[in-house]
């Protein structure tokens, strides 16, 4: 990644790579605010209607799940974790690109991030909300879930801090909180912009409250910038730690095929991979729907496809290395687990995964694939499918472990499928609300990287 990053630092703002046309402070404000201030088109309502219905389906299915128990899913004795955990890892992974774009690229002074970081952060938050849903609902007695928190109680019992699930609770909880704070801090000046442009009383009130009375004074900017920097700084290890910890759910167990040290880095790479794919998907849709071609420029998209090529290759390398280590270790259970993945009952899933995750991003070696919007869109979706299957393949390793007598095959029920699809409904509902009510591009940040934002800009004329 570092070579790519180096490339990117050479970018010159003046190259006009980032924003097509000749944007000014005013035009940026206008372009971005307009989306929020005008009534959305029919398309938005259609999409929102669909998403909301899916969300309602999600809630009703979750309600039924709470009523009946996790037996409504396809889980069985060897496969104690099914789609719920697959979806959890999938959504957490998606979230990572948001943090990477907003925090890591911020620290690396990657100015091209400014057009997509708000977007990506929003995606992170909504993805993490979807992710958190799954471990919550997958437990057998959801009403006792608070026992994972170290609260004093009459039983004098404490959680078991050795459990990777508890690490998850803390890590993903922290991740969500930090991402939310980071996002919100970034939103404050833009909310102030909307407040100052608002026409009706309700908007004024709402944006007024949430912009906290922001005045844009430098004495505020001073602390603000530091807070933002530090939040970016502490979010960066989170990108690495959260998915590493999620991977320990598998890696610290002794299930053959799970018990591997390669999991943390490979999960992080996979997370970024899938996250970028999701950002790409969303950005391409938003670009089309809101005519933001001059903000999500082909150049930005091309850089994102580089990242996908890189992380996709890393993921492919990890797959190969897993196989090699399984063979090299001489552990028969480990060997079997991997041979079983590729040629066992779930071979179909494995080869979908390989096709989508390893082969499809290799197309980005060709410029045509990096620059063609339809192809980018297709590949980004394919990668998302592939990354879901990666988690599916991993979780399904459970179906065949040490004792063949216990082996069984897992098939999802309509509730598995419905809740997964419903989580997309929830995600898009939140995302569409975000597009409708919040500035989808960080205006203040974009302005700060415009040529005229440079104090010496005027002088150099």
């Amino acid at each position, binding site marked *: 990644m570092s070579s790519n990053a180096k490339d990117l630092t050479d970018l010159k703002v003046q190259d006009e790579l980032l924003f097509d046309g000749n944007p000014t*402070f*005013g035009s940026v*404000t206008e372009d971005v605010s307009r989306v929020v201030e005008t009534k959305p088109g029919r398309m938005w309502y259609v999409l929102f209607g669909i998403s909301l219905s899916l969300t309602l389906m999600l809630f009703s299915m979750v309600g039924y799940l709470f009523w009946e128990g996790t037996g409504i899913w396809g889980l069985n004795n060897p496969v104690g974790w099914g789609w719920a955990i697959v979806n959890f890892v999938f959504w957490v992974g998606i979230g990572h690109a948001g943090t990477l774009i907003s925090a890591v690229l911020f620290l690396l002074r990657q100015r091209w991030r400014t057009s997509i970081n708000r977007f990506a952060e929003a995606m992170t938050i909504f993805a993490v909300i979807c992710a958190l849903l799954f471990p919550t609902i997958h437990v057998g007695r959801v009403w006792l879930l608070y026992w994972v928190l*170290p609260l004093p109680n009459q039983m*004098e019992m*404490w959680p*078991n*801090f*050795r459990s990777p699930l*508890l*690490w998850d609770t*803390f*890590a993903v*909880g*922290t991740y969500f*909180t*930090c991402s939310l*704070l*980071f996002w919100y*801090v970034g939103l404050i*000046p833009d909310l102030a*912009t909307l407040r*100052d*442009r608002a026409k009706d009383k309700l908007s004024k009130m709402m944006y007024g*409250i949430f912009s*906290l*009375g*922001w*005045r*844009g*004074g*430098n*004495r*505020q*900017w001073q*602390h*603000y*910038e*530091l*807070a933002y920097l*530090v*939040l970016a700084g*502490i979010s960066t*290890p*989170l990108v690495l*730690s959260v998915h590493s*910890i999620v991977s*320990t759910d598998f890696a610290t167990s002794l299930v053959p095929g799970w018990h591997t040290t390669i999991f943390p880095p490979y999960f992080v790479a996979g997370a970024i991979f899938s996250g970028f794919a999701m950002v790409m998907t969303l950005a391409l849709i938003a670009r089309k729907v809101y005519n933001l071609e001059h903000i999500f420029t082909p150049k930005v998209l091309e850089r994102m496809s580089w990242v996908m090529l890189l992380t996709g290759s890393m993921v492919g390398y990890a797959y190969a290395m897993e196989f090699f280590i399984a063979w090299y270790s001489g552990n028969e259970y480990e060997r079997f687990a991997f041979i079983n993945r590729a040629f066992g009952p779930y071979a179909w899933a494995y080869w979908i995964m390989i096709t989508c995750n390893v082969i499809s991003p290799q197309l980005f070696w060709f410029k045509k694939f990096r620059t063609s919007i339809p192809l980018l869109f297709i590949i980004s979706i394919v990668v998302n499918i592939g990354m879901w299957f990666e988690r599916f393949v991993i979780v399904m390793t459970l179906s065949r472990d040490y004792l063949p007598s216990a082996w069984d095959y897992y098939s999802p029920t309509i509730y598995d499928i419905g809740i997964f699809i419903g989580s997309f409904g929830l995600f898009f509902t939140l995302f569409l609300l975000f597009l409708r009510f919040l500035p989808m591009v960080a205006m*203040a*940040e974009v*302005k*700060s990287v415009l040529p*005229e*934002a*440079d*104090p*010496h*800009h*005027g*002088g150099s004329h």
Partner: protein
Amino acid sequence: MGLFKKLPGVIIAEFDSTGSLLHAAEKMSEAGYKKYDCHSPFPIHGMDKAMKLKRSPMGYIIGTMGLIGMSGMVGLTYWTNTYGYSMVISGKPYFSWQAFIPVIFAITILLSAFGAFFGMLALNKLPQLFNPIFNSDAFAKVTNDSFFVSVESHDPMYDEAKVKSFLESIGGKNVEVIKGE
């Protein structure tokens, strides 16, 4: 209570570019103004220096919070596993510190983030929904494409006429006097 003292009036002047605002800031600080601020739609590089602002204490706040988080979590894991209810889990030692690192790390990060967020709010005295400066209609542009300098009436050098003319002299336009609370 000190926290609730009345907000002062301000005099504001508009500037048209980042360059002129930076220039104005330099002049203001040179002239010895203390209670003034430079408003812009985005943070301007070099402005802290131009205004001669002290380093933000944010770092200390965040660091302290992080330390509290870390030591608190080390303490909690140690106490619960050795004194609270020590249990034999997988034959491992009661205080299996290696396994506790992830939670300790997470809480350290979490409290640091709280430090950053709430520290920033506290230092900026936010939320502050009412401010006399909002009485100015022109000031609304500050979140769009305009730049302002504001001087509070609490400033030791405050004199309405002098300030007005000084602001005009450093290139401020549409100078406006806003009454305090």
